């Protein structure tokens, strides 16, 4: 399979020209963000020309690499064209799929997460807890976007529903985390159906726009209906999750929350995996693949769409309850469109419909900015660049969905 040496393409003049052009374009694009820095108090402006050079150089290099990879693929692609590999497991994945490698790998990962709080500081544990919450959110959105193919840009609304359910129930009735969790989940499902009904007839771009609007409406209601939600000042002093009324120090409580979030993530993985390999899951995939054929196969499109919205929203709402309990303070600013965009990023980057991929993407996207401080400032820029790169190099995501086989095993 190794390509003949003469096929490893040398960059041509055209490649270099294109790469330079890309570099300039990115310099232009990022100019206001990366080069100009305004200090409103001192009323001065710093021009960071070095940043511009970095951006130009890096994007030109990446563009050149992309072109070379593309050329390389085109050269050795004749063979591959025989079997369209759009959704076939990447070789890296096939490597890990044999049980003899998969079991130790899983054990190692499991052990790592189990002893994580013993090895790292509370600060690190806290970051990991947040990342794990995004695993839950990503998997929930994966039901709607990855399985059923319904582009939902207002997913954060259900996250808010969960958080405010707990916040308000605690504020007014003193209810605890464990009571609020199922109530939040149910309310999330209800809101999922409420959103689902008006958008039943919409598809693609139209669906995306309406769901985006829905997300903003929920946030604006929370912001402006002060009597109900305490407006922008939010709800404070929400109780952390309890454990049979045991008193816990802050540190213990954080570790407890970590394990709680792990349990939640595992539960989500379990449930989402079971849903995927079921009659309902197949109906979602059918809807995503071809909605006319899906109906012609006797699937009630309305019911299956509403189920997807409701189940996706349930996970978001439960993650929201967890979020409120973790931060002990919530306000509408936590539930902006940016949040929806990040969760969608996780799903797309991980691989639509792929559970392992979404878990990996959530951890990578949430942890990387924390540990690469230099990146953190330009987080969204990096997210965007990574997504674009991904679409070019491997459009099916980090770890594409594996195909389920039925005949090989028996």
């Amino acid at each position: 399979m190794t390509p003949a040496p003469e096929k490893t393409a040398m960059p041509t003049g055209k490649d270099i020209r294109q790469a330079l052009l890309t570099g300039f374009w990115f310099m232009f694009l990022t100019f206001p963000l990366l080069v100009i820095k305004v200090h409103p108090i001192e009323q001065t402006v710093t021009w960071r020309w070095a940043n511009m050079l970095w951006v130009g150089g890096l994007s030109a290099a990446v563009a050149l690499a992309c072109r070379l990879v593309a050329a390389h693929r085109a050269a050795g692609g004749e063979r591959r064209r025989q079997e369209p590999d759009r959704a076939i497991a990447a070789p890296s994945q096939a490597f890990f799929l044999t049980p003899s490698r998969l079991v130790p790998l899983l054990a190692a990962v499991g052990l790592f997460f189990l002893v994580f709080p013993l090895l790292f500081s509370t600060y690190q544990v806290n970051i990991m807890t947040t990342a794990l919450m995004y695993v839950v959110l990503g998997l929930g959105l994966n039901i709607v976007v990855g399985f059923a193919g319904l582009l939902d840009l207002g997913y954060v609304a259900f996250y808010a529903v969960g958080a405010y359910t707990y916040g308000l129930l605690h504020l007014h009735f003193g209810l605890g985390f464990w009571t609020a969790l199922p109530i939040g989940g149910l309310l999330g499902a209800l809101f999922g159906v409420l959103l689902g009904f008006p958008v039943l007839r919409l598809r693609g771009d139209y669906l995306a726009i309406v769901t985006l609007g829905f997300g903003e409406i929920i946030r604006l209601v929370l912001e402006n209906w002060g009597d109900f939600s305490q407006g922008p000042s939010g709800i404070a002093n929400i109780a952390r999750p309890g454990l049979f009324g045991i008193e816990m120090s802050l540190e213990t409580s954080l570790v407890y929350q970590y394990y709680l979030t792990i349990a939640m993530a595992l539960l989500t993985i379990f449930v989402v995996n079971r849903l995927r390999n079921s009659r309902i899951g197949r109906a979602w995939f059918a809807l995503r693949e071809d909605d006319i054929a899906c109906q012609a196969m006797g699937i009630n499109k309305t019911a299956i769409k509403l189920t997807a919205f409701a189940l996706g929203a349930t996970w978001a709402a439960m993650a929201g309850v967890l979020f409120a309990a973790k931060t002990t303070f919530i306000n509408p600013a936590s539930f902006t469109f940016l949040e929806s965009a990040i969760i969608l990023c996780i799903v797309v980057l991980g691989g639509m419909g792929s559970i392992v991929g979404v878990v990996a993407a959530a951890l990578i996207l949430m942890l990387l900015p924390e540990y690469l401080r230099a990146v953190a400032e330009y987080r969204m820029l990096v997210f965007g660049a990574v997504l674009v790169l991904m679409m070019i190099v491997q459009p099916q995501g980090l770890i594409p969905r594996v195909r389920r086989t039925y005949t090989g095993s028996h």
Partner: protein
Amino acid sequence: MQPLLTVNDLTMDFGGIRAVDRVDLRLRPGEIVALIGPNGAGKTTLFNCLTGLHRPTGGDLVLAPPGRPQRNLNGLPPHRITAAGLARTFQNIRLFPHMTVLENVMVGRHCRTTSKVFGAIFRPEATVREERETVGMSLALLERIGLAEQADEWAANLPYGAQRRLEIARALATEPLLLLLDEPAAGMNPQETQELDALITSLRDDGLAILLIEHDMKLVMRLSDHIVVMDYGRKIAEGTPEEIRRHPAVIRAYLGEEEYGA
């Protein structure tokens, strides 16, 4: 014998265009009826009306399953019509490309199975049994159309002729009383057409009623018990293959003088 499907005065307008114009149709169990006519005659539109994808402007659809009370199919949504016993294939193949061959057929079992979200998550005995039956029946159907070997392949990776057969298997998985095939032989080589011929015959022998849109006249003449000819949305002739072969209006509209003329 009482007809399985009775279509009366079916009409479909798209704005000013009348794509189907007061068409009558009858089909008995175990009968193959072919629907022929030039491109744009309204054949596919008629299929879309029968299967609920279009809501007809006028007319009646009545299904009378043997041994069960007859029912009116007017205005039912597509999934209800499939559940009632009409299954179809599409002129432009509409498989689920990123599902496996077997999963494509399993989707067809949807309307004959019942497990819900609870069953999916907790997998009670009933769901496990149902899943096993779904896999078993789907594999059996793949066996029948000769695609069992490729069961775990992505549907998108199948060659063209196999995709057409897979569409038939998927439709059969819904346990239809009436199968509607929209140009199933289009793009097939002679060998594949031969196999399709055998498959359709064996389905008929199982008592299935089949409504067939097809341009391959040899296939149509050999298979059908009855032929309906459409042109400009109207039914211009019907009869046995022998009668159709001689029908002057048909020869004019569709078959071409030099090929079938006296």
